[in-house]
């Protein structure tokens, strides 16, 4: 475990050097947290006190935990990989005695750890102080939520890694990453709970896409929507997506390296 630990620490340290960016990011998360919170609470109020099964306290938690998770899952920021493929720097990654997939994954976990301590906790504390968040009844919810966040981070990482690998074919992945940013927001439960969508669409998203595993699963576990009867299968789906998406990364990477053309001589 020395190599993973060293890479996790390096990922943590790497992001810890950008303190001003961390403060600015947390501030932005908090501002948008207020906006989203007031919008969802007013919808719930106009709907008679709850919104698609979430009571106001659950909605408050949903919003503020979501604002915190946003930085942990980090869907909107692409990995360096695509840029390194474009510039040819990926050569250095391939010349190490460790698969680049694991190097990037452990480093991203370190980044997630730093985000958890800073960008996740800040909105949560603000949400608690200004609105009062939902406190889970079942003690199992806490470890399950933490594991679920790790799974969400890994699914997000694997999807972003796949987008980075697209650079081996496309060179410029901006189009793919824009599509990803749209779907990872709208279809993950970040903007609104997926329960507001028609049943068939929500079911399809849960069944065949990784998007609910990025946010919705963890947030439902945290606010105990449907209790463990919903939370455990949701976590199970996340684990399946972690495995599937990492396998996809390995498969695509093997093909990408086989057709590698190192850019720039």
């Amino acid at each position, binding site marked *: 475990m*020395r190599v993973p630990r*060293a*890479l996790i620490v390096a990922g943590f340290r*790497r992001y810890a050097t950008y303190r001003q960016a961390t403060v600015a990011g947390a501030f932005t998360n908090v501002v948008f947290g207020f906006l989203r919170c007031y919008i969802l609470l007013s919808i719930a109020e106009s709907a008679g006190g709850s919104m698609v099964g979430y009571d106001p306290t659950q909605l408050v938690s949903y919003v503020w935990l979501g604002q915190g998770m946003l930085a942990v899952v980090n869907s909107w920021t692409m990995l360096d990989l695509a840029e390194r493929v474009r510039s040819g*720097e990926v*050569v250095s990654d391939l010349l190490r*005695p460790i698969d680049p997939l694991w190097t990037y994954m452990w480093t991203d976990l370190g980044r997630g750890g730093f985000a958890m301590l800073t960008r996740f906790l800040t909105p949560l504390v603000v949400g608690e102080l200004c609105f009062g968040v939902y406190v889970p009844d079942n003690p199992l919810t806490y470890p399950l939520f933490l594991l679920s966040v790790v799974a969400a981070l890994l699914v997000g990482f694997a999807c972003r890694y796949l987008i980075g690998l697209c650079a081996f074919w496309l060179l410029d992945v901006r189009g793919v990453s824009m599509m990803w940013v749209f779907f990872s927001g709208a279809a993950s439960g970040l903007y609104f709970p997926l329960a507001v969508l028609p049943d068939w669409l929500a079911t399809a998203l849960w069944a065949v896409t990784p998007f609910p595993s990025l946010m919705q699963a963890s947030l439902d576990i945290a606010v105990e929507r449907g209790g463990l009867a919903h939370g455990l299968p949701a976590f199970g789906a996340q684990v399946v997506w972690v495995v599937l998406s990492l396998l996809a990364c390995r498969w695509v990477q093997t093909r990408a390296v086989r057709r*590698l053309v*190192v850019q720039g001589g």
Partner: protein
Amino acid sequence: MIISARGLRKDFTVTRKVGRFRRERHVVSAVDGVDLTVERGELLGYIGPNGAGKSTTLKMLTGVLYPSAGEVTVCGVEPVAKRTTLAKRIGVVFGQRSQLWWDLPLGESFALLRHIYRVPDTDHAARLTRCTELLGLDEFIHTPVRQLSLGQRMRGELTAALLHGPEVLFLDEPTIGLDVLSKQAVRDFLGELDQRGDTTVVLTTHDLADIEKLCRRLVVIDHGRVVHDGTLDELHTRYRSRRVVVADLDAPWPTDLTLPGAEVTAVEADGHRVTLTLDGIAAGEVVAALARAVPLRDLSVQEPEIEDVIARLYRSEA
């Protein structure tokens, strides 16, 4: 031998637009049948003009690129199939790319590499101490890599490539863009590495002073093919490079004077300066004959320029 390549080739398919909608595909051979053997402990200069196929060869030797044809082994293994195994036995520095972590201090990059390469603490410490002394890393080892100058970063890259004790070190233009002092530091370091003899070095460069100062053996590649494999002296002989004697005289040059083995190529300063090009004869013999014939005030012997001979080689292969 530690490196062996036979008939090594790399083809790239290039598409070209012809007409409004049609694209034509054609194959370009970046490396076209390179044969190369390198013995353990050698310091080999691998040079050629831009686009000759130097970097592509290096990438095939390190296992990053799949060869289109040919056989290659490095440290006894096939590079592509055993890339991660081979990575522990080789070090690579690409002058225009970085293997260091941009956001971390240089020392932390080294510590991370120790874990990645699973290097025992004592070995890592000993190698780092040696590199620190030879490359003067002390003053910037705690500086984040993004804040280092190019020369400092390159010294860091060299260290990073050597900390796991590689058997072969591949250097792709390690002195590109460096100032005189940094170039000197890198060359001195490589010279010291060569003297120890425990690391084989393959050096590609456009800086011919690197070659002149460091490499006993020179492999020149052009259009993907090896066009010279031998010493620099052999290259001079092949292209009839000639030394030049420039003499300042106290009396005007007697126009009817001839010196065996030397050709008068210029007479200047009202006959008080003469330039003689030697045709394989020792400079001492010509100087002695010159001193007997006319009173000498000053004299200089100019070695043939490596740039000239390499340029002639490139032109002849073009």
